[in-house]
Protein backbone atom coordinates (compact mmCIF):
# COMPACT_ATOMS: atom_id res chain seq x y z
CA UNK A 1 0.00 0.00 0.00
CA UNK A 2 2.87 2.36 0.75
CA UNK A 3 4.42 1.74 -2.66
CA UNK A 4 1.07 2.15 -4.39
CA UNK A 5 0.61 5.45 -2.53
CA UNK A 6 3.87 6.82 -3.94
CA UNK A 7 2.87 5.74 -7.44
CA UNK A 8 -0.65 7.21 -7.31
CA UNK A 9 0.46 10.48 -5.71
CA UNK A 10 3.08 10.83 -8.46
CA UNK A 11 0.42 10.19 -11.09
CA UNK A 12 -2.05 12.70 -9.62
CA UNK A 13 0.70 15.28 -9.27
CA UNK A 14 1.75 14.85 -12.91
CA UNK A 15 -1.83 15.23 -14.15
CA UNK A 16 -2.17 18.40 -12.06
CA UNK A 17 1.03 19.80 -13.58
CA UNK A 18 -0.19 19.00 -17.10
CA UNK A 19 -3.60 20.65 -16.63
CA UNK A 20 -2.09 23.65 -14.87
CA UNK A 21 0.09 24.80 -17.77
CA UNK A 22 3.39 24.26 -15.94
CA UNK A 23 4.52 21.74 -18.58
CA UNK A 24 4.37 24.43 -21.31
CA UNK A 25 7.70 26.29 -21.18
CA UNK A 26 6.33 29.15 -23.31
CA UNK A 27 3.58 29.63 -20.76
CA UNK A 28 6.09 29.56 -17.88
CA UNK A 29 8.35 32.10 -19.58
CA UNK A 30 5.29 34.27 -20.24
CA UNK A 31 4.51 34.18 -16.52
CA UNK A 32 8.10 35.08 -15.63
CA UNK A 33 8.19 37.90 -18.21
CA UNK A 34 6.90 40.61 -15.87
CA UNK A 35 8.46 43.36 -18.01
CA UNK A 36 6.86 42.11 -21.23
CA UNK A 37 3.34 40.87 -21.95
CA UNK A 38 2.98 39.29 -18.54
CA UNK A 39 0.72 36.21 -18.40
CA UNK A 40 -0.54 35.92 -14.81
CA UNK A 41 -2.31 32.54 -15.24
CA UNK A 42 0.37 30.45 -13.57
CA UNK A 43 0.07 32.49 -10.38
CA UNK A 44 -3.17 30.61 -9.89
CA UNK A 45 -1.32 27.28 -9.93
CA UNK A 46 0.69 28.11 -6.85
CA UNK A 47 -2.32 29.91 -5.37
CA UNK A 48 -4.57 26.86 -5.72
CA UNK A 49 -1.89 24.46 -4.55
CA UNK A 50 -0.88 26.50 -1.51
CA UNK A 51 -4.44 27.15 -0.32
CA UNK A 52 -5.16 23.42 -0.39
CA UNK A 53 -1.72 22.61 1.02
CA UNK A 54 -2.02 25.11 3.87
CA UNK A 55 -5.37 23.82 5.13
CA UNK A 56 -4.76 20.20 4.13
CA UNK A 57 -1.45 19.99 5.99
CA UNK A 58 -3.04 21.36 9.15
CA UNK A 59 -5.87 18.87 8.89
CA UNK A 60 -3.56 15.90 8.24
CA UNK A 61 -1.06 16.82 10.95
CA UNK A 62 -3.78 16.55 13.58
CA UNK A 63 -3.56 12.80 13.08
CA UNK A 64 -1.01 10.96 15.21
CA UNK A 65 0.72 9.41 12.18
CA UNK A 66 0.43 8.98 8.42
CA UNK A 67 -1.44 5.95 7.09
CA UNK A 68 1.54 3.99 5.78
CA UNK A 69 4.48 5.17 7.87
CA UNK A 70 5.19 5.13 11.60
CA UNK A 71 5.56 8.92 11.88
CA UNK A 72 5.53 12.17 9.93
CA UNK A 73 8.93 12.97 8.48
CA UNK A 74 9.03 16.71 7.76
CA UNK A 75 12.00 19.04 7.23
CA UNK A 76 13.00 20.69 10.49
CA UNK A 77 15.69 23.19 9.47
CA UNK A 78 14.82 26.84 9.90
CA UNK A 79 18.21 28.48 9.30
CA UNK A 80 18.66 30.58 6.17
CA UNK A 81 22.20 30.11 4.88
CA UNK A 82 24.23 30.99 1.81
CA UNK A 83 23.58 27.56 0.25
CA UNK A 84 19.85 28.22 0.31
CA UNK A 85 20.30 31.59 -1.42
CA UNK A 86 22.90 30.37 -3.89
CA UNK A 87 21.01 27.19 -4.75
CA UNK A 88 17.70 29.00 -5.22
CA UNK A 89 19.42 31.61 -7.40
CA UNK A 90 21.07 28.99 -9.65
CA UNK A 91 17.79 27.12 -9.90
CA UNK A 92 15.94 30.34 -10.78
CA UNK A 93 18.43 31.08 -13.56
CA UNK A 94 17.97 27.60 -15.06
CA UNK A 95 14.19 27.82 -14.72
CA UNK A 96 14.18 31.18 -16.50
CA UNK A 97 16.40 29.87 -19.32
CA UNK A 98 14.38 26.76 -20.15
CA UNK A 99 10.95 27.31 -18.58
CA UNK A 100 11.18 23.90 -16.92
CA UNK A 101 11.44 23.15 -13.22
CA UNK A 102 12.03 19.51 -12.20
CA UNK A 103 8.45 18.17 -11.96
CA UNK A 104 7.11 19.55 -15.23
CA UNK A 105 10.29 18.49 -17.05
CA UNK A 106 9.71 14.88 -15.96
CA UNK A 107 6.07 15.03 -17.04
CA UNK A 108 7.10 16.58 -20.38
CA UNK A 109 9.23 13.50 -21.14
CA UNK A 110 5.96 11.97 -22.37
CA UNK A 111 5.96 14.48 -25.24
CA UNK A 112 8.66 12.31 -26.80
CA UNK A 113 10.79 15.39 -27.47
CA UNK A 114 14.52 14.68 -27.49
CA UNK A 115 15.07 18.28 -26.30
CA UNK A 116 13.19 17.46 -23.09
CA UNK A 117 15.36 14.36 -22.67
CA UNK A 118 18.47 16.54 -23.05
CA UNK A 119 17.22 18.88 -20.32
CA UNK A 120 16.29 16.03 -17.95
CA UNK A 121 19.63 14.23 -18.41
CA UNK A 122 21.49 17.47 -17.69
CA UNK A 123 19.28 18.03 -14.64
CA UNK A 124 20.18 14.58 -13.25
CA UNK A 125 23.87 15.29 -13.91
CA UNK A 126 23.37 18.51 -11.92
CA UNK A 127 21.75 16.56 -9.05
CA UNK A 128 24.64 14.13 -9.00
CA UNK A 129 27.29 16.85 -9.29
CA UNK A 130 25.88 18.67 -6.29
CA UNK A 131 25.60 15.48 -4.27
CA UNK A 132 29.22 14.66 -5.07
CA UNK A 133 30.70 18.07 -4.24
CA UNK A 134 28.51 18.95 -1.28
CA UNK A 135 29.24 18.32 2.31
CA UNK A 136 27.39 15.25 3.54
CA UNK A 137 23.77 16.12 4.19
CA UNK A 138 22.74 16.41 7.80
CA UNK A 139 21.50 13.06 9.12
CA UNK A 140 17.81 12.57 8.65
CA UNK A 141 17.48 15.17 5.90
CA UNK A 142 14.26 14.01 4.31
CA UNK A 143 13.50 13.73 0.65
CA UNK A 144 12.18 17.03 -0.47
CA UNK A 145 12.17 19.24 -3.15
Amino acid at each position, binding site marked *: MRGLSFFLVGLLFAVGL*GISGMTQPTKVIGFLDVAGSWDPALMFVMGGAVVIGFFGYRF*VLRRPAPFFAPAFDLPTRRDIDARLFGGAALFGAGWGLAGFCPGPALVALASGSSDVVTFVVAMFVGFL*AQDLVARPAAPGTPARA
Partner: protein
Amino acid sequence: MPEPGSIPAALAGGALIGIAAVAMLALTGRVLGVSGIAAGLIAPRSSDRGARALFLAGMLTGGVLVGRLLPQALPGAITSSTLWLVVAGLLVGFGTRLGGGCTSGHGVCGISRLSPRSITATLVFMAVAMVTVFVTRHVIGGIP
Protein backbone atom coordinates in the same frame (compact mmCIF):
# COMPACT_ATOMS: atom_id res chain seq x y z
CA MET B 1 -12.29 21.08 -20.23
CA PRO B 2 -10.65 24.50 -20.27
CA GLU B 3 -7.43 24.93 -22.25
CA PRO B 4 -4.43 23.74 -20.18
CA GLY B 5 -2.69 26.79 -18.79
CA SER B 6 -5.77 29.07 -18.90
CA ILE B 7 -6.71 30.60 -15.55
CA PRO B 8 -9.46 28.04 -14.70
CA ALA B 9 -7.15 25.18 -15.72
CA ALA B 10 -4.28 26.71 -13.74
CA LEU B 11 -6.51 26.84 -10.69
CA ALA B 12 -7.78 23.28 -11.20
CA GLY B 13 -4.28 21.94 -11.89
CA GLY B 14 -2.96 23.81 -8.87
CA ALA B 15 -5.71 22.27 -6.75
CA LEU B 16 -4.71 18.78 -7.95
CA ILE B 17 -1.07 19.58 -7.12
CA GLY B 18 -2.16 20.67 -3.63
CA ILE B 19 -4.25 17.53 -3.19
CA ALA B 20 -1.27 15.40 -4.26
CA ALA B 21 0.96 17.18 -1.72
CA VAL B 22 -1.60 16.66 1.06
CA ALA B 23 -2.12 13.02 0.05
CA MET B 24 1.65 12.49 0.12
CA LEU B 25 1.76 13.74 3.71
CA ALA B 26 -1.33 11.80 4.80
CA LEU B 27 -0.22 8.52 3.23
CA THR B 28 3.57 8.50 3.50
CA GLY B 29 4.34 11.26 6.02
CA ARG B 30 6.66 13.07 3.59
CA VAL B 31 6.70 16.36 1.74
CA LEU B 32 6.29 16.17 -2.01
CA GLY B 33 9.56 17.49 -3.37
CA VAL B 34 10.44 16.37 -6.88
CA SER B 35 14.11 17.40 -6.97
CA GLY B 36 14.85 15.65 -3.67
CA ILE B 37 12.94 12.51 -4.62
CA ALA B 38 14.50 12.33 -8.09
CA ALA B 39 18.04 13.17 -6.95
CA GLY B 40 17.82 10.49 -4.26
CA LEU B 41 17.25 7.89 -6.93
CA ILE B 42 20.81 8.28 -8.20
CA ALA B 43 22.63 9.78 -5.21
CA PRO B 44 25.46 7.62 -3.85
CA ARG B 45 24.17 8.07 -0.29
CA SER B 46 20.46 7.52 -0.46
CA SER B 47 17.58 5.70 1.10
CA ASP B 48 14.26 4.31 0.01
CA ARG B 49 15.11 4.03 -3.67
CA GLY B 50 12.09 1.82 -4.30
CA ALA B 51 9.63 4.47 -3.10
CA ARG B 52 11.42 7.14 -5.14
CA ALA B 53 11.27 4.97 -8.26
CA LEU B 54 7.55 4.29 -7.75
CA PHE B 55 6.78 7.99 -7.32
CA LEU B 56 8.70 8.84 -10.50
CA ALA B 57 7.05 5.96 -12.36
CA GLY B 58 3.70 7.44 -11.29
CA MET B 59 4.77 10.83 -12.63
CA LEU B 60 5.87 9.36 -15.97
CA THR B 61 2.60 7.42 -16.22
CA GLY B 62 0.72 10.64 -15.46
CA GLY B 63 2.72 12.31 -18.22
CA VAL B 64 1.67 9.65 -20.71
CA LEU B 65 -1.95 10.13 -19.61
CA VAL B 66 -1.67 13.90 -20.10
CA GLY B 67 -0.08 13.33 -23.52
CA ARG B 68 -3.05 11.17 -24.54
CA LEU B 69 -5.85 13.36 -23.17
CA LEU B 70 -4.32 16.85 -23.54
CA PRO B 71 -1.50 16.65 -26.07
CA GLN B 72 -1.37 20.46 -26.25
CA ALA B 73 -0.21 20.46 -22.61
CA LEU B 74 3.07 18.79 -23.65
CA PRO B 75 4.55 20.91 -26.42
CA GLY B 76 8.13 19.87 -25.64
CA ALA B 77 11.00 22.27 -24.94
CA ILE B 78 11.28 25.97 -25.72
CA THR B 79 14.48 25.62 -27.73
CA SER B 80 16.39 22.98 -29.67
CA SER B 81 19.74 24.45 -28.67
CA THR B 82 21.53 21.59 -26.91
CA LEU B 83 23.93 24.01 -25.22
CA TRP B 84 21.06 26.11 -23.88
CA LEU B 85 19.16 23.05 -22.60
CA VAL B 86 22.25 21.50 -21.00
CA VAL B 87 23.20 24.72 -19.21
CA ALA B 88 19.62 25.18 -17.98
CA GLY B 89 19.32 21.55 -16.89
CA LEU B 90 22.62 21.65 -15.00
CA LEU B 91 21.59 24.87 -13.22
CA VAL B 92 18.20 23.43 -12.27
CA GLY B 93 19.70 20.15 -11.05
CA PHE B 94 22.64 21.62 -9.16
CA GLY B 95 20.70 24.61 -7.81
CA THR B 96 17.72 22.66 -6.49
CA ARG B 97 19.99 20.28 -4.58
CA LEU B 98 22.16 23.08 -3.21
CA GLY B 99 19.07 25.04 -2.15
CA GLY B 100 17.32 21.94 -0.81
CA GLY B 101 14.25 22.11 -3.00
CA CYS B 102 12.40 23.31 -6.08
CA THR B 103 8.97 24.63 -6.96
CA SER B 104 7.18 21.68 -5.35
CA GLY B 105 9.14 21.15 -2.13
CA HIS B 106 9.86 24.80 -1.34
CA GLY B 107 7.16 26.50 -3.40
CA VAL B 108 4.12 24.37 -2.61
CA CYS B 109 4.92 22.24 0.45
CA GLY B 110 7.25 24.68 2.19
CA ILE B 111 4.97 27.68 1.83
CA SER B 112 2.03 25.54 3.01
CA ARG B 113 4.09 24.78 6.14
CA LEU B 114 5.07 28.48 6.43
CA SER B 115 8.73 27.40 6.47
CA PRO B 116 10.98 30.48 6.52
CA ARG B 117 13.60 28.62 4.45
CA SER B 118 11.08 27.72 1.78
CA ILE B 119 9.50 31.17 1.65
CA THR B 120 12.98 32.68 1.23
CA ALA B 121 14.01 30.15 -1.42
CA THR B 122 10.78 30.68 -3.37
CA LEU B 123 11.18 34.46 -3.38
CA VAL B 124 14.80 34.09 -4.54
CA PHE B 125 14.20 31.60 -7.34
CA MET B 126 11.14 33.47 -8.63
CA ALA B 127 13.02 36.77 -8.63
CA VAL B 128 16.10 35.32 -10.33
CA ALA B 129 13.94 33.52 -12.91
CA MET B 130 12.16 36.81 -13.70
CA VAL B 131 15.48 38.64 -14.06
CA THR B 132 16.78 35.82 -16.27
CA VAL B 133 13.75 36.07 -18.56
CA PHE B 134 14.11 39.85 -18.63
CA VAL B 135 17.74 39.53 -19.73
CA THR B 136 17.17 36.79 -22.32
CA ARG B 137 14.04 38.39 -23.80
CA HIS B 138 14.60 42.10 -23.52
CA VAL B 139 18.37 42.57 -23.28
CA ILE B 140 19.92 39.92 -25.54
CA GLY B 141 16.74 39.67 -27.61
CA GLY B 142 15.56 36.08 -27.37
CA ILE B 143 16.97 32.61 -26.96
CA PRO B 144 18.70 30.67 -29.73
